[in-house]
């Protein structure tokens, strides 16, 4: 489809603005640009058509099943969109609270304060900040808190963060930007962190260990408390990557498992839309002894008045301009009120039931490297099909032609030809059955006519794209 710039007709306009209604002001010409930016010249309808057409070349959660493992693509309730669009929140200026309008900002501040409390209770932590603007930003915040804690205790030897080889790449990247050296710990046969490897790596230089639970393979590590004890015994901190919280939410709290720092991804567990890549929100919770280091400001309450608390001398400082992605936090807040304590237990139970149902239905057709009860996601391998020349990528592309978004492929790295399926709790049995039928049909074709899958997808506006050419002959802007 043509670019929006290529549809431009000189002289056409998409908006009309009021006259200034005041005398024209002068700016020294040396401060002005030499010519207007070459933006498109289009009518409102031109713009509406262009982006409506582009939207039809996309696939959203509302379009169909989105079983992306480790991404928790659950339904985003429409109620939350309506609430975030409410002008009484949407038009509120973030500086008003510090510009004579603390009283006029109480609704927003009260919401944030309650949200901090709710997240503490759901995760079993002592304090929560909503500032981090995405999951990776939350990781960085959490690791900065870890660094500040050891520094405050004068423990300058704490220079290393241990991370399992199954971890998402943001974990080591965040630790490195917080100034830590990263050491990778290998996994044992069941995909969990190898306790012996951990034990021997735990020396005085270790500041913390970054883990997720259940693991990236969707399996719960029954030794998690033992690991926490080991880590704490060497004066290091336990960091919880909240990517997989959906499996245990409402029935088990990271704080109770022994974690000291937690980051969440609100779009995963708390149903905020992913937006095609953001905006996200990555609140961070900490245990009691780490609260002095939390970013400033937190929202505090004194005799019924909510206000920002900047007076935090040991704080790592500000990680966001204000309280983070407020509009996203507000959506998640509404979702939490809606679900309540009983709702979350149902979320994890249904998510786990759905994943195990898929595990059961597909295990005769695809290799299942860890054949045991799984949590919210299940990892298959396409190695049986690969022997016939059909790879996980081909299976993913074949799913596109059948109306499904593919599952996560080639992650985690420790499973060859990995296919990671996470159905979430919001999908119906009928949808899950249709997906399983499609996967079984693809397995049949992979056996009978493997070549035919190489051409997939054939029903899209484009076929498989040349990514090597894209990286070699960089064409990243039409100027």
């Amino acid at each position: 489809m043509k670019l929006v710039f290529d549809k431009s007709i000189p002289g056409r306009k998409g908006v009309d603005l009021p006259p200034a209604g005041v005398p024209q002001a002068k700016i020294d010409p040396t401060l002005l640009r030499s010519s207007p930016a070459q933006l498109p010249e289009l009518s409102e309808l031109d713009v509406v058509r262009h982006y409506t057409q582009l939207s039809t070349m996309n696939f959203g959660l509302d379009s169909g099943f989105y079983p992306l493992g480790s991404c928790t693509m659950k339904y985003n309730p429409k109620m939350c969109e309506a609430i975030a669009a409410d002008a009484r929140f949407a038009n509120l200026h973030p500086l008003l609270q510090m510009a004579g309008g603390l009283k006029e900002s109480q609704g927003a501040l009260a919401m944030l304060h309650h949200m901090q409390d709710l997240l503490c209770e759901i995760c079993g932590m002592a304090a929560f900040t909503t500032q981090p603007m995405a999951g990776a930003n939350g990781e960085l915040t959490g690791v900065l808190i870890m660094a500040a804690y050891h520094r405050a205790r004068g423990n300058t030897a704490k220079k290393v963060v241990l991370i399992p080889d199954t971890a998402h790449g943001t974990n080591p990247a965040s630790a490195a930007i917080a100034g830590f050296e990263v050491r990778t710990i290998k996994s044992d046969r069941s995909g969990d962190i190898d306790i012996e490897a951990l034990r021997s790596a735990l020396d005085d230089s270790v500041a913390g260990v970054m883990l997720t639970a259940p693991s990236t393979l969707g399996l719960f590590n029954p030794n998690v408390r033992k690991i926490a004890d080991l880590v704490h015994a060497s004066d290091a901190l336990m960091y919880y990557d909240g990517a997989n919280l959906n499996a245990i939410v409402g029935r088990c709290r990271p704080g109770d498992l022994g974690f000291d720092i937690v980051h969440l991804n609100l779009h995963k567990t708390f149903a905020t839309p992913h937006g095609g890549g953001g905006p996200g929100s990555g609140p961070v919770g900490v245990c009691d002894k780490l609260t002095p280091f939390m970013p400033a400001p937190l929202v505090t309450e004194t005799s019924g008045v909510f206000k920002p608390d900047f007076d935090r001398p040991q704080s790592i400082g500000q990680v966001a301009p204000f309280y983070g992605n407020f509009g996203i936090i507000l959506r998640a807040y509404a979702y939490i009120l809606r679900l309540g304590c009983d709702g979350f237990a149902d979320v994890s139970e249904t998510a786990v039931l759905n994943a195990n149902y898929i595990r059961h239905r597909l295990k005769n057709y695809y290799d299942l490297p860890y054949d045991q009860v799984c949590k919210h996601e299940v990892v298959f391998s396409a190695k049986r099909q690969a022997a016939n020349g059909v790879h996980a990528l081909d299976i993913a592309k074949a799913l596109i032609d059948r109306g499904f978004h593919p599952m996560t492929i080639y992650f985690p790295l420790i499973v060859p030809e990995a296919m990671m399926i996470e159905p979430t709790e919001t999908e119906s049995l009928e949808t899950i059955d249709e997906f399983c039928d499609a996967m079984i049909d693809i397995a049949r074709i992979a056996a009978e006519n493997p070549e035919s899958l190489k051409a997939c997808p054939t029903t899209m506006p484009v076929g498989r794209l040349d990514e090597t050419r894209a990286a070699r002959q960089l064409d990243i802007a039409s100027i």
Partner: protein
Amino acid sequence: MSIPSGLLYSEQHEWIKLEGDVATVGISQHASEALGDLTFIDLPAVGKQLKQGDEACAIESCKAAASVYSPAGGKVVEVNEALANDPAILTNDCYGEGWIFKMKLDNAADLANLMDDKKYADLLGSL
């Protein structure tokens, strides 16, 4: 799999060839094939001082990246500029036109830690 004799190899799959006091460094065919179609070679700066095992530069393909470790200590004296424009040169001729950089060695004794073609072939056979 080509493993020319006359070169020395590291466990990280670099090769090095000493001529006079200047050594040429590249990556083995095994490494090149593992990476697939290369998209970018981030050449080291001329003058960069490296110890044996230091990361000299990085190589990128579409969905992977690898570090090139210096097989010996020394100073980078020349880089293969042709690779910056056309990384496929490395894939097509990793032991010849696809060399990455040349270095002046600090201590030729570093080379004693490396493998000859036969030992390197054994290493690959054991992977």
